[in-house]
């Protein structure tokens, strides 16, 4: 592992780090705010209260506050310690491989990590957990985050926006910073469901309460939603029909997952997608149908050709010639030699052929 090169294992470290950064900042804020409140309470007490019972009551209240604060901060500190340990352990893990055996082991684990990431994102939870357990990757995959996302996503798949909206509320500030339209779209879908079941009055009330506040930011979509009310579920007009289609719910699940990943500093595309797109591009090159097929080449398999559709092919500015005899790439030490019939083989290949046939 070249320590000078930048590592591509970014999400592995970003997830615990960003969570840590946020926690430290929130802790600092919470501490300051609570201290300010207590100080102010003391001032009020100092200036106004003389009555013994009231004072005692107030002091007990302050005592409770302090206890609360202590407990909350302790929990935070435990979490921060865990995150710091995770950061350190992961950095350690990434800087270890040096010998070829270690590198091979690392690459094997990497593929497993990539698969777990894909499986958990694709809601194939059982498979994902099976691979996770067998490869003992619990410390290197943020399972909790994926499971939480899956929990809420499955309620969405059952056409219930409740949990997803609760999640939006909890993370409202950060979603706003991200300019996320998720909450709006969830509300629109609830509205559509009211319309679908014929409860038009409910729909209008819902719109007044939950859609109107977004009307200035998403005015186009807002008016489209109003159009849905007018056209109704039986409409053949494509623009409004799409809101009633089952595919709409799939889209919502996709948007929800997308925002979740962003919030947690995970990549929006799966690690498998990233590595496959890179690998397929770099291995794919123009092939001759007449050329002999190398079974070790993944790109000779139809499946991989399908997967590579639409991806750019590799560029080769330098020739690489593989000797048909030795199956090795020719180099300066093992140069290509031309036979009179136009075939080219490497020197080593011809030499060993000559040896085997005793000089010819």
């Amino acid at each position, binding site marked *: 592992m070249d320590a000078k090169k930048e590592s591509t294992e970014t999400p592995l470290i970003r997830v615990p780090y960003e969570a840590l950064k946020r926690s430290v900042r929130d802790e600092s804020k919470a501490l300051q705010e609570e201290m300010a409140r207590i100080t102010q309470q003391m001032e009020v007490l100092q200036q106004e209260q003389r009555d013994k019972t009231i004072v005692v009551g107030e002091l007990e209240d302050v005592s409770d506050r302090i206890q609360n604060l202590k407990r909350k901060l302790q929990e935070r500190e435990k979490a921060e310690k865990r995150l710091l340990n995770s*950061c350190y352990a992961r950095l350690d893990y990434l800087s270890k491989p040096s010998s070829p055996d270690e590198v091979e082991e690392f690459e094997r684990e990497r593929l497993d990590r990539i698969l777990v990431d894909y499986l958990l994102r694709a809601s194939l939870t059982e498979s994902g957990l099976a691979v996770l357990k067998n490869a003992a990757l619990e410390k290197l995959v943020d399972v909790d985050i994926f499971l939480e996302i899956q929990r809420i996503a499955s309620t969405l798949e059952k056409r219930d926006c409740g949990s997803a909206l609760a999640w939006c509320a909890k993370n409202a500030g950060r979603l706003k910073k991200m300019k996320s339209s998720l909450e709006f779209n969830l509300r629109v879908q609830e509205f559509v469901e009211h319309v679908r079941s014929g409860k038009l009055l409910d729909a209008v009330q819902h719109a007044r309460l939950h859609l109107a506040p977004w009307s200035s930011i998403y005015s186009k979509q807002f008016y489209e939603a109003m159009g849905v009310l007018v056209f109704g579920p039986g409409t053949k007009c494509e623009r409004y029909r799409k809101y009633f289609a089952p595919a709409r719910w799939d889209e919502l699940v996709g948007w929800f997952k997308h925002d979740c990943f962003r919030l947690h500093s995970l990549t929006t595309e799966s690690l498998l997608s990233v590595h496959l797109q890179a690998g397929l591009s770099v291995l794919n090159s123009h092939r001759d149908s007449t050329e002999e097929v190398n079974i070790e080449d993944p790109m000779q398999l139809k499946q991989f050709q399908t997967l590579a559709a639409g991806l750019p092919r590799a560029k080769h500015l330098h020739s690489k010639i593989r000797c048909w005899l030795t199956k090795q790439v020719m180099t300066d030490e093992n140069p290509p030699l031309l036979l009179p019939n136009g*075939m080219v083989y490497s020197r080593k290949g011809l030499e060993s052929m000559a040896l085997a046939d005793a000089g010819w």
Partner: protein
Amino acid sequence: MEAAREQAAKATKRQKTSANAVREALEGLEKAVEGAKRDVVAGENVEERVSQLAKEVQALATDEKVSAGQREMQSAVAKLGKALDKAFMSDISKVCRKGKQFNKDTLQEVIAQHFFREGRFEEGDVFVRETGMVPERSLKSEFEEMHGIIDSIEKKKVQPALDWAVQHREKLNPEGLPSELEFKLVRLEYIRRLKHEGKMAALRFARESFPQHGVGQMHEISKLMGCLLYEDKLEASPYKQIVLDDMWGDVRKCFLQEYCKTVGHSSVSPLRVVVNAGALALQALLKLTTIMSTAGLSDGDELPVEIPLGPQYVFHSIFTCPVSKEQCTAENPPMRLQCGHVLCKQSIQKLARGGARPFKCPYCPTECLEAKCQKIHF
């Protein structure tokens, strides 16, 4: 990376310090409040006691240790962040082409086949079940036999592999003689008998099994026969290398490769090959996206730069014409000029300009005729 690790260690220390400072301050606060409460209940002057408490609270709330601890903690975390920025690439999903979706069925097939090929039957079964894919597409049965035999090799049992090797003799060695794999297996069995059953048993076995390998393996056989002299003391003999070598590991690898070759599969899971290649190329590709700043990788058909991966990823010959910088194809094959230099056909045609006149090779000033250029194959 090192720097980041150090920063993480530093941040851990600061966190401890900060946490301690905060805890002390809060405990002090608690005590002060409790103390004041007790005194007031006990009958002390309320006004004075409260005044005193207010001063104590003020002091603790603005405790320098606490605020310093918080500041240092935040600074340590920020420094860690900077170290991470330096050590890691920023957003690896930039490499993904916008709108590219993998065909779900194909991808699932590939993953299932990967599990079974690597002998992970449990995970494979769970995956096939959970995705609801057609089980036959997972090629499980093809790899079951292979892994059954590998299992027995790992348990140091030679027979199943040997049976297989004998059965597939023709495929393994087109000349009809026993294959190298077969010999390796026989050799292992011979050594086992020598160690556990004594030299007579080993000799008997050798008489039965070695002769047919005589043609290609005489050298090795003579070494093995020499071992008979040292039956108990192989480790101290001139043949000690035989016991030290990881023969079982070697046989396992050899069997895997031969098996895969006979059924027409690659010896390494293709998914693994592609992902490893991707990981190698990832950095270069990411740097490309920052330079190009278009959506995802190049919009064109071909990557704009070459990304060398090393000889183990060269699966077929690629000839690039040094003049046109294009890859040669069947329609545009490499041709050798009379001087020995090789160009692609189209470049030669362009240089010759259709005439029967000779043209100059771009590398050496030899004159060549188009008609005399020879098509070459790799």
